[in-house]
């Protein structure tokens, strides 16, 4: 009797034990560091309370980084989830050589982010890049990808999207395949077209997976580092820090200013920001889903 009760917990315990070591411990330790003077090389100093947080919040580069992060996050996550959804819908049809198509959308994901950044860094060269050659061929003025704030955000977001869209599409596709086919048949009998079926059946029925994808891409989107870091040789996100994200700002404090106390404070602030965004997204997508679910109740049953 005891066995039956205990065994499941024993089986799940390795995850939680590991999580305690590799998840909770760093989180707690970062909090500990963030309330001390702590140099990268000199180590622990005096207890300083919330002073590091105050200094971070007073630093104009923190707010600048927050703005950049949110801008790049919106430019990447929103199109990413929408395109992934559409892509998954297309892959869910009776294509020839289905496996080939499905596997090929995952290809960008296999390439290391550093390699992606190198390739895109060349594509988005301000003067000699491929993207600008195209732009000029159309007859427009070259875009200063590394200089203009919005242009640099678009360039970085496209790196992120290139990498993650296919991955998200496959997750959504897996959920779509679990939707019973007879639902579509009855909808077709009722006269619903492909698009209508997709909007009214597919999307509502895979809602939990959509929420999962939105949350994970929120977490990822707010932590973007490698792409913008490698977009600039100095590593500070451009001469005007026009694309320095929060994680890059954290890195700058820790490894350039060599103040781990302040860097840890940023880490905690970022953690809180992510929680707020994730909850907000959960709430919004739940509400949107609930409205739709209510309207389509007849179809779902």
């Amino acid at each position, binding site marked *: 009797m005891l066995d039956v009760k205990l065994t499941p917990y024993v089986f799940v315990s*390795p*995850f939680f034990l*590991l999580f305690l070591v590799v998840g909770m411990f760093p989180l707690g330790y970062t909090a500990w560091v963030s309330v001390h003077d702590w140099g*990268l*090389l000199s180590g622990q100093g005096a207890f300083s309370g919330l002073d590091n947080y105050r200094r971070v919040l007073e*630093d104009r*580069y923190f707010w600048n980084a927050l703005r950049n992060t949110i801008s790049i996050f919106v430019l990447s996550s929103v199109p990413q989830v929408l395109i992934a959804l559409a892509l998954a819908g297309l892959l869910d049809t009776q294509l020839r050589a289905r496996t080939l198509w499905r596997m090929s959308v995952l290809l960008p994901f296999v390439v290391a982010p550093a390699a992606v950044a190198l390739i895109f*860094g*060349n594509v988005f*060269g*301000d*003067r*000699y*890049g491929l993207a600008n050659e195209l732009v000029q061929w159309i007859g427009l003025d070259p875009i*200063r990808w*590394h*200089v203009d704030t919005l242009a640099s955000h678009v360039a970085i977001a496209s790196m992120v999207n290139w990498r993650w869209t296919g991955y998200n599409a496959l997750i959504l596709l897996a959920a779509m395949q679990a939707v019973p086919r007879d639902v579509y048949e009855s909808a077709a009998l009722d006269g619903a077209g492909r698009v209508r079926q997709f909007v009214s059946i597919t999307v509502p029925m895979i809602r939990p997976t959509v929420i999962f994808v939105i949350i994970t891409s929120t977490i990822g989107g707010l932590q973007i580092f490698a792409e913008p870091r490698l977009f*600039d*040789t*100095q*590593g*500070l996100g451009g*001469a*005007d820090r*026009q694309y320095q994200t929060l994680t890059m700002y954290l890195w700058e404090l820790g*490894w*350039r*200013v*060599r103040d*781990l106390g302040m860097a840890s404070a940023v880490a905690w602030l970022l953690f809180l920001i992510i929680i707020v965004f994730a909850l907000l997204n959960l709430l919004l997508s739940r509400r949107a889903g609930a409205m739709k679910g209510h309207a389509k109740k007849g179809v779902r049953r």
Partner: protein
Amino acid sequence: MALTLAATAAACGSDDEGTTADGKVKLTVATFNEFGYEELIEEYNAMQDDVVVEQKKAGTANEHQDNLYTKLAAGSGLSDIEAIEVDWWSALMEQSDAFADLSDPEVEGRWLDWKTEAATTPDGALIGYGTDIGPEGICYRADLFEKAGMPTDREKVAEMFGTWDDYFEAGRQFVKKVPDTAWYDSSGGTAQAMINQVEYSFEDEDNTVIAAENPEVKEVFDTITANAADGLSTGLTQWSEDWTASFQDNGFATMACPGWMLGVIEGNADGVEGWDIANVFPGGGGNWGGSYLTVPAQGDNVEEAKELAKWLTAPEQQIKAFEAKGTFPSQAEALDDPALTGSTNAFFNDAPTGEILADRAEAVPFIAHKGPKFADINTAFQQAIQRVDEGQESADEAWDSFLADIERLG
């Protein structure tokens, strides 16, 4: 899951233990840009039965330095030998405990006095072996000079660039004649060359930060930003993709070039004909960069690493590195070695680079003081100049935000 973790940990571990599969000692040497060590390392490996050396090259000094700090803080993961550039040297001298004392009777008197002095701690430990120094000449594109109707012969060119004013004035004439080509490669590089001629630029003798008040710093800033407005600069950041590409695209006609830059130019401008180097530097002489090899104390094979560093920085080897990539020796004995003074560089129109750089080294009046904050302030200074180049801020705004950045660095 625990099993996979343990397995990956073991896999990582075996890489760092400092021995190869067949039981040889494995040494890693971390460098950046071009040190000219490729053939030397092959030579060393061929000489040794029980040591295998491998080089890890970073693209830029900045990148290399970031990595060094990270692993220094972590207390592990550094290479057995780490190169360190002079701009960061003072900051790392404060961590001298992290590096092995390399003093050895065999190497006494090997380097120029100031090079050794800078690497000696107050307690008398020697923590770095000098590799190269960076005496600067002016590298130029003779073919583009010809297009602008300017003299192309390196002796004649040398006569034109006695002062910075002469050099910039020649640039103003040049860009009028050849409007699609800038005069020099980057505002940042030129500014750095000028800052290197200021004995106390960002910090004074006691390492108090004086960058904000120092009129010499402001003058460099004003000159460079005014030049950019006149179209003398490409407006690109050194080491960026566009900067690298501009070597292939007639992007600019001249650049301040310390010895180690010769290898960089040759690599970036591969296939471009017309490069030459003039035996002159505006404002007298200047030293830009140069490095040391250090042996981090955290390594497993400190003794073997020291032997290797000693061999790599011996005059004979440094001369070979110079022949490969232009890294000009900091070793006293190498300076009048015929192998150095007689050396020519085919890429630079067979210029007698050995002789030219030896002259340039001679012309350096003093070695600029670089305290522990130098590299950080310099980065902020370069960023400020870049903001003006890119039109994000006016010169006045950029200067003000530079002042705010200094404040922030504390």
